[in-house]
């Protein structure tokens, strides 16, 4: 039962990943790709948490924390660049 629920959750997250990947591929503007990049990072955090659960190791969660930091910093760097380069 629990396994089934985890499979279902992973399938839904994978579908979300593919949809956002389409937005990343299609664009059309840089800002659209940036928000898609942000959402991809956040979905990756879910993926990392699921992988940690499946492997049963808490140490993987440290990587997720670095990801959360990265998604914030990356968006701000690119936003400041877009703001300035006009």
């Amino acid at each position: 039962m629990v396994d089934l629920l985890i499979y279902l959750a992973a399938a839904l997250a994978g579908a979300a990943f593919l949809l956002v990947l389409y937005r990343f591929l299609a664009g059309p503007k840089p800002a659209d790709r940036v928000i898609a990049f942000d959402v991809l990072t956040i979905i990756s955090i879910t993926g990392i948490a699921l992988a940690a659960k499946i492997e049963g190791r808490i140490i993987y969660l440290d990587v997720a924390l670095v990801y959360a930091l990265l998604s914030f910093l990356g968006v701000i760097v690119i936003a400041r660049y877009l703001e300035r380069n006009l």
Partner: protein
Amino acid sequence: MVYIAMLTGFILILMGLYGALTNRNILRMIVFFTLANTGTNVVLVSIGYMMGRKAPILDNAVPAAEAVARIIDPVPQALVLTAIVIGLGITALMLAYAYKLYELKRSLDISKCRELKW
């Protein structure tokens, strides 16, 4: 899983080389260099992976007594860790020189750099 990762790494290396060979813009060449760098790292890490084994960190999930039978090869990981850090160093150096080149030539197109051609 090993084969998937390895195939992806090889494809990334080829993509990076293709981009670096066909572009004339120096910043784009550096971007494709980092792409090929990532691909190489993926291939190297995938060589160390073994099916059904765990990460080489000893804790409750992997006690020290069973380590030999439970962990994967840690040597490629140490190698790749070094490679990533040095990769950033190389990229930063290339970017600094690219910027200097841009200041001199006012252009990013390397076909305009003709001093060393004959």
